[in-house]
């Protein structure tokens, strides 16, 4: 299959001089997702400054993350890393009492070769609190790949499948005893009632990986419940203590396109079976995603086609706006292929898909699906540019004059001043874009500049830069 893709798809690779967020930004959404975690970013003032500016208001809300700011003494090894980290982690434990501390390694810890992975287990024993190490640095990764490194590290901490079953049995025994005192524990009783229900899953264990807001996660869960597929767990779960159990009987499936390391770790280290599917972004993607999972479990999907149609019908007003318009993805968060595929299906023309990094194996199903979408819409597959060069892209954009550029915040205002509509790509990372229910939210974002400009169109001030004096 992968051969077939490379035959017809054209991949280009440029210089990698592009703007994106540093991968440590993943703490922003992960600390909110994993409620009992604490993220400690081991880095310099540079990292801290980025976080505090990128996260804006969140920083004031007593976040569960902090910087371990390296000083000159740390760099020149006059201070002992281990002792320093121990001191800080003790303080964190005292102040916040988290269930897990996640160390985020940065460029600096890479360069001075600080052995975070070596220190963590020792300190973990000493402090009696799990310490997970993720190297989310700008030397190796871009933006959302930060989450990938954290989840890959966390995959090692998920309990082994069998052990958990034993535990459950024990719990049930315990609760039987407690049943004698059932007037004391009303809630416990409810749990035991639920348990046989969970046990009666028909499909083998299915664990989804990728951090999504809890409402989106439960939307996807209920979507699969419609097809009578039970999801046995999420990586990450709402709490660190609820990480799903993994093992060679467990099927896993990704919900986001940037999770290739996590996928690899789950397959190679935890022996899970990976379901390679397009990602549930857009109604087309969601249907393809759910159908792929069903086909793996030998379940015939029911009503998914109708459901997709219904969603498309609901989107009609937005589709009228976007049809025939052109888009240029500058590329910075790895969602680009899936979003482009959805927009093509919406009737848009995509000139270029810039993307920081493309794992052709992990995204194989998505790529194939994109190709088919292009075929169905009878437009050529857009060029995919890995590690793009922003300067060159801007030159290309100047020629192509796309109706919409999906770009980082560094270029948005300058492009707008030159009469090119833009949408900040970062918003796609933070908005709810997965599943049938949220398809509208994607188009809400995409059409916002178009709708805004419909209002301003005839005012005669689209081009707002001073003409160069020659």
């Amino acid at each position: 299959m992968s051969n077939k893709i490379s035959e017809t798809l054209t991949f280009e690779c440029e210089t990698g001089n592009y703007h994106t967020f540093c991968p440590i930004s993943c703490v922003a959404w992960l600390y909110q997702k994993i409620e009992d975690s604490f993220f400690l970013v081991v880095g310099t003032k540079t990292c801290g400054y980025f976080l505090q500016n990128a996260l804006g208001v969140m920083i004031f809300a007593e976040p569960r993350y902090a910087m371990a700011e390296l000083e000159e003494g740390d760099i020149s090894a006059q201070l002992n890393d281990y002792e320093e980290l121990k001191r800080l982690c003790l303080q964190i434990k005292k102040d916040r009492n988290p269930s897990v501390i996640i160390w985020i390694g940065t460029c600096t810890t890479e360069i001075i070769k600080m052995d975070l992975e070596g220190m963590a287990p020792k300190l973990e024993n000493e402090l009696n609190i799990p310490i997970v190490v993720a190297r989310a640095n700008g030397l190796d990764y871009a933006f959302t790949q930060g989450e990938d490194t954290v989840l890959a590290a966390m995959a090692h901490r998920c309990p082994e499948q069998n052990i958990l079953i034993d535990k459950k049995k024990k719990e049930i025994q315990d609760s039987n005893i407690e049943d004698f005192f059932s007037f004391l524990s009303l809630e416990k009783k409810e749990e035991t009632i639920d348990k046989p229900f969970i046990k009666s899953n028909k499909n083998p264990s299915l664990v989804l990986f990728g951090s999504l807001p809890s409402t989106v996660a439960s939307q996807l869960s209920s979507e699969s419940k419609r097809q009578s597929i039970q999801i046995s767990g999420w990586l990450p779960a709402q709490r660190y203590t609820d990480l799903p159990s993994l093992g060679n009987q467990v099927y896993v499936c990704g919900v986001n396109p940037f999770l290739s390391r996590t996928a690899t770790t789950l397959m190679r280290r935890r022996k899970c079976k990976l379901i390679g599917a397009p990602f549930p972004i857009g109604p087309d993607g969601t249907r393809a995603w759910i159908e792929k999972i069903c086909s793996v479990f030998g379940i015939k999907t029911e009503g998914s086609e109708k459901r997709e149609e219904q969603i498309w019908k609901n989107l009609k007003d937005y589709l009228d706006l976007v049809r025939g318009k052109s888009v240029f993805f500058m590329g910075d968060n790895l969602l680009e292929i899936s979003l482009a595929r959805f927009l093509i299906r919406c009737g848009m023309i995509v000139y270029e898909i810039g993307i920081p990094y493309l794992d052709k194996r992990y995204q194989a199903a998505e790529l194939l699906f994109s190709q088919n979408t292009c075929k169905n819409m009878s437009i050529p597959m857009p060029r995919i540019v890995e590690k793009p060069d922003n300067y060159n892209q801007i030159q290309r954009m100047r020629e192509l004059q796309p109706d919409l550029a999906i770009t980082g915040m560094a270029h948005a205002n300058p492009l707008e001043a030159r009469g090119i509509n833009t949408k900040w790509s970062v918003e796609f990372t933070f908005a709810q874009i997965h599943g049938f229910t949220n398809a509208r939210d994607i188009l809400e974002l995409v059409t916002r500049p178009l709708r805004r400009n419909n209002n301003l169109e005839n005012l005669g001030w689209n081009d707002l830069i001073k003409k160069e004096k020659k």
Partner: protein
Amino acid sequence: MKLAYWMYAGPAHIGTPRVASSFKNVHAIMHAPLGDDYFNVMRSMLERERDFTPVTASIVDRHVLARGSQEKVVDNITRKDKEERPDLIVLTPTCTSSILQEDLQNFVDRASITSNSDVILADVNHYRVNELQAADRTLEQVVRYYLEKARRQETLDQSITEEPSANIIGIFTLGFHNQHDCRELKRLLQDLNIEINEIIPEGGSVKDIQNLPKAWFNLVPYREVGLMTAIYLEKNFGMPYISVTPMGIVDTAECIRQIQKHMNNLVSNKTFDYESYIDQQTKFVSQAAWFSRSIDCQNLTGKKAVVFGDATHAASITRILAREMGIRVSCTGTYCKHDAEWFKEQVQGFCDETLITDDHTEVGDMIARIEPSAIFGTQMERHIGKRLDIPCGVISSPVHIQNFPLGYRPFLGYEGTNQIADLVYNSFTLGMEDHLLEIFGGHDTKEVITKSLSTDTDLTWNYESQLESNKIPGFVRGKIKRNTEKFARRNDITNITVEIMYAAKEALSA
């Protein structure tokens, strides 16, 4: 290692591009890993800049780590030289390049052979200086580079202008209300019949740096950036400089008097006298002097306030509050630790205590202990105030998009005094109004009473859907609940489940 949640001053490599990109046609290249070009986002978003920020990164990745940058930095410099034809390229080291210890000077030397632009390496060490210090140094470095170059090429004209003229040094991008201050200073000098010779770095061209010595004197409005340059110009060209910040009525007058003194020293055939101008402006143009006599301001007498910010703004505001408005400044402080001595001297006698720290928790604790009626600080103090229910006026960076107002809001000069008076007064009255409301039990109706849709229905929310609705952020929960119930009623559904919630969302596209 230090546990840190927040910092007042950014890292050195923010300061350098702030200076570089303020000049016209100067490009900064950062030797940095992916994602460190966050400066571009700040400039583009906060300043709402229309042009592409002239800062690019020469990316440090795994390959660079393994083999060194080799040709990469040089290539990036020469490439930028061809693409944009800048007058000057400033290679900017970051924390990463500080520890890689590559010979960046060598890259600069090599690149300057082939490129038409001048190329320099910013002389800043990430671990020793912060954003403001780095900006100060970089500005001095650029000025020195061009003056020495002019001297070598013997194009340096050291004669001063016929008419009195001044340079304004230290106005730059992402500075707190710098654009407005610049306009106000220009107006002030114009009123005094002093020509503007050069303004650097904002909007200045490096080609014009050699004209700097033509001015009669230099005006350095902010203590943090520009002072090094002024001292360099004094030492090498005998140019006097004025570093009194013209903020507040008294200090603006003091600044003008110093200008007068320097000008009278320079010429013997003519005397400059600005006293009548000062008098006129103080009494009738600026409203601040009148305001401090008015009964409004009388009500503020003895009220407690806390001030925190960069050295310039915190010191000036402290003196304005204490000296011009009769407000009691319980504590004043700055995060410019490197300038602590100067700061303490400036605020001596105007406050009860001083606090020199860059740890925001210390500042928060101080505020909680003192419980002032109002805070004048940075965005951080504004948030501390929110938590403690104390109003706050923002007087200094670090800043926020709100601190880049479109309207005219200088802090300097006579218009600045008006703006500051408004800011101070509004902060306090808000506080007082709140307080009075508390005493008299609030407004008539504390809550707007509406007939909730769900009170008169037979709809039931099952356990899961209740849980789910609790996950919805508070400010939209009511709306979603209403929409869901509307949908349920329309479809004759009485039991609301999570599925119904989603179905409602899809149907109503809410």
